[in-house]
């Protein structure tokens, strides 16, 4: 390589390095400014909220003043990132406060920007902004958009659908179960749990009218959701609904029913029914769960266990034997196992 070539190479490398350093410097300055701007928004918002909640009568904080101050720190229509940050602060604040001040905050939120930011989001094409918009609408309780949000409950995107369903629960509570038979797409396990938890947090008093109407649903996810609700709210009168599904042809529905029934203690008659079901359920894993439930929630029914021991269900015989053995029926278990050997064989026991 000639001298000129080497020089050119060094110059190139230096130029790249300089560009690299400059870009680092620019991003650092930008980030610093951005952090400062966000901090300013947070400070202003914190100050506004605290003064609004505890307003000084001699020097009241007016809505016009609030809007001016928010504008001054960069909450403007064109600046979407700032608006988004403010929305996050608003939701966070609303979540931390209860009681009368919660309603005060709600009143404040209705009067300050972003007036339409969440609604604009749900009209967008992308699923991410839609889901986010719906979430903001229910988190901030903007019930005026209820009808718009409900349209999304059968949306093909799972996240949009999910948020829309939660929004229904938040806005309508138990009445939202009315729509359950009309839902077309699957509700995943996590979504079921989320719905149940939301319902429990916001509407702890059960309204049986809506629950009973929802029983008509023929969707499997609907049945599972209803059983989970019965379990969470400990609705003893509704146990028959769970019991009906213990023998459902679908494995997962049965599984949910078994899981939910375990929360309840049952009367002797109902326990007898469960024992019948136990004999009819074909899956050994589920049988084992039922056996465990029967054992823990009822007195030792020797006839039942002996019938299982002498029956043809080999996979659970050991469990049955263990229960009998541990509950004072050792000799019956011994008798059962001895009889498997021919009479003249030499058993090594005393």
């Amino acid at each position, binding site marked *: 390589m000639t001298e000129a070539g080497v020089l050119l190479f060094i110059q190139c490398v230096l130029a790249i390095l300089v560009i690299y350093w400059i870009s680092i410097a620019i991003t650092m300055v930008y980030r610093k400014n951005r952090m400062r701007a966000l901090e300013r928004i947070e400070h202003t918002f914190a100050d506004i909220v*605290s003064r609004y909640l505890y307003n000084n009568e001699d020097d009241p904080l007016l809505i016009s003043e609030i809007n001016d101050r928010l504008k001054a720190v960069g909450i403007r229509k064109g600046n979407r990132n700032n608006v988004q940050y403010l929305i996050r*602060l608003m939701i966070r*604040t609303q979540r*931390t*406060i209860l*009681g009368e001040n919660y309603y005060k905050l709600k009143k404040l939120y209705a009067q300050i920007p972003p007036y339409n930011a969440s609604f604009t989001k749900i009209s967008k094409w992308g699923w991410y902004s839609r889901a986010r918009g719906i979430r903001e609408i229910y988190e901030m309780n903007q019930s005026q958009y209820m009808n718009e949000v409900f349209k999304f409950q059968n949306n093909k995107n799972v996240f949009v659908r999910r948020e829309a369903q939660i929004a229904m629960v938040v806005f309508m509570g138990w009445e939202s179960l009315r729509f359950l038979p009309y839902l077309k797409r699957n509700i995943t396990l996590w979504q079921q749990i989320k719905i149940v938890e939301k319902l429990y947090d916001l509407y702890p008093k059960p309204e049986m009218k809506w629950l009973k109407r929802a029983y008509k649903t023929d969707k499997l996810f609907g049945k599972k959701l209803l059983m989970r609700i019965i379990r969470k709210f400990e609705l003893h009168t509704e146990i028959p609904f769970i019991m009906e599904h213990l023998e459902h042809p679908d494995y997962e529905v049965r599984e949910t029913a078994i899981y939910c029934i375990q929360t309840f203690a049952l009367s002797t008659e109902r326990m007898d029914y469960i024992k019948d079901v136990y004999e009819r359920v074909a899956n050994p894993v589920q049988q084992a769960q039922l056996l465990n439930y029967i054992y823990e929630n009822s007195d030792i029914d020797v006839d039942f266990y002996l019938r299982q021991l002498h029956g043809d269900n080999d996979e659970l015989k050991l469990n049955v034997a263990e229960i009998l053995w541990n509950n004072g029926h050792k000799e019956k278990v011994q008798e059962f196992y001895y009889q498997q050997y021919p009479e003249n064989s030499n058993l090594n026991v005393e």
Partner: protein
Amino acid sequence: MRKVLVIQEDLIILKILERLVTVNHFDCKAIRSLDALTIEDQQSDFEFIITDILFEGIAPLEFVAQVQEIIPHKNLLVVTNMGQDKIKKEIFALKDITGFYAVPIDLDEIEATIQAYS
């Protein structure tokens, strides 16, 4: 004027509590972490300390113990995001805790406590 110390990392809760305390005619010192505490603060006797328990680099119980040890005060209220029953029990097992409020909080309750004890 009687003094109250508020320690909260969350700026919004900090400001709201500061305001709540001020309208109840207390002199309020509001800080976001113990680092902001001055030597004079450590010598003044606070009527109340309203504090979070979740701070970087220190376990909740240890934090409370430290606050109790280094800052002279009459009553200690805990306002925190960590509302699990286990934490609550552990905090109350410590000595001299006046109240424990987990998020979401009802500010009126805290105000009533301040008025009742002062």
